[in-house]
């Protein structure tokens, strides 16, 4: 990048519109307000320092999210999260998703609150990929750039993340609907 096009003004012009999205993502990752604020602050400082190395014409949004996410991974919460996520069976995959079970509908009909709770409980490796795909509406290729993983892994993590969410929410719903099921059972006996 030329010295002129890598100016701080140019950086601001490109980066500030992403501010809210980056903060939202940081907050979901860190799950703590002041930590998220520090993350965003550090991300902007790092990005500005490294702006000269940003290649114009490439994906600036992916670049910013990558810096934020790497900053998170080296933070205390990030390190802890990395340690506690079990290695996922990436390829074993949800080959046979049974789309006919109520599980498939559990997510679509969940309340916003229940969804947010489930998303919070999701291991960070799945949480981040769901956020980038469904909230930031990034393409698989862009997500692969942010996370520095192959596109196949992006796909399997998205599928598995959604599956985990469905299971969590279906489980919750099943618990809630037990009395109804019992009632139906009784009716059947009559």
């Amino acid at each position, binding site marked *: 990048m030329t010295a002129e096009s890598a100016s*701080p003004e140019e*950086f*601001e012009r490109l980066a*500030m519109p992403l*501010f*809210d999205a980056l*903060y*939202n993502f940081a*907050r*979901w990752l860190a799950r703590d*307000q002041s930590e*998220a*604020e520090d993350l*965003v*602050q550090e991300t*902007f*400082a790092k990005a*500005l*320092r490294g702006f000269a190395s940003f290649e114009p014409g490439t994906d600036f949004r992916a670049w910013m999210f990558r810096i934020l996410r790497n900053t998170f991974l080296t933070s205390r919460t990030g390190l802890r999260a990395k340690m506690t996520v079990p290695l996922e069976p990436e390829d074993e995959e949800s*080959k*046979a*998703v049974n*789309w*006919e079970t109520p599980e*498939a*509908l559990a*997510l*679509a*009909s*969940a309340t*916003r609150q229940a*969804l*947010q709770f489930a*998303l919070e409980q999701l291991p960070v490796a799945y949480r981040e990929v*769901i*956020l980038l*795909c*469904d*909230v930031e*509406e990034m*393409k*698989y290729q862009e997500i692969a750039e942010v996370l520095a993983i192959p596109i196949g892994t992006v*796909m399997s993590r*998205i*599928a598995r993340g*959604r599956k985990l*969410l*469905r299971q969590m929410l279906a489980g919750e719903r099943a618990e809630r609907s037990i009395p109804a099921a019992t009632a139906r059972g009784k009716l059947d006996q009559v």
Partner: protein
Amino acid sequence: MSCMEWQNRLEGYVDAELPPSEMTAFREHAAHCSDCAAAALALIETKSALRRAGHRYTPAPDLRARVLASARAQAKATRVESADFGQQKKTAKLLMWPRGALAAAALVLLATGLFFAANRYPRPKSLGEFADLHVTALASANPVEVVSTDRHTVKPWFQGRIPFTFDLPELQGSPFTLAGGRVAYFHQEPGAHLIFAYQRHFISAFIFRDTPQLAIAQAPFSDRGSSFNLQTWTQGGLRYVLMGDVNAATIQQLADLLQRRQ
């Protein structure tokens, strides 16, 4: 392709990541297969439910200004300092003062706003609230959410953000330029807050739906007691409030431009 094969491609379909030929093929398949159609629909709804749930956090109002201030200080420091290895520490020190300076500037501006609001005695209450909006926006490091001098960018930006539309005048040949816009709230009602630049001054134009809460005097209004000038009128069910630290004639000139446009 069988249903089983399609169902393994469902995620790719709803994420619009299948090759175009497969996207079309799936649509044709789903037209005849209710199971696959229902599964795709559930997944599409899932995606939009997640999108809504995921947009959860908004930054504290001052965070943007804080981040911007330290980025600017950092940029300034980098320009001033030659690139040596000891630079980072110095930058860190330099980061400290602009934050304080900015906070002080914001306080002064806010105090001005409060003073103005507190001394608006004979005026209806709502004008003071607009003054607060004006001053608070200008005190922020990012006064506008959509930065553009192009009315064809600013106007569409408001679509879906406010419950009405409005027209903007062509400013070419006038002394005004459009600096941008943001959504403002007045009694929980969203409206447009446009900021126009005139020489080195900024003029706020507020556009809200005309509701009974907006009980403001109809007549042009100029306030000699303060450095602010105001102009307000209703037009097409919308209430316009212009406000800025320029003279009354300038405000009137901008008001004329906006009124002609409607």
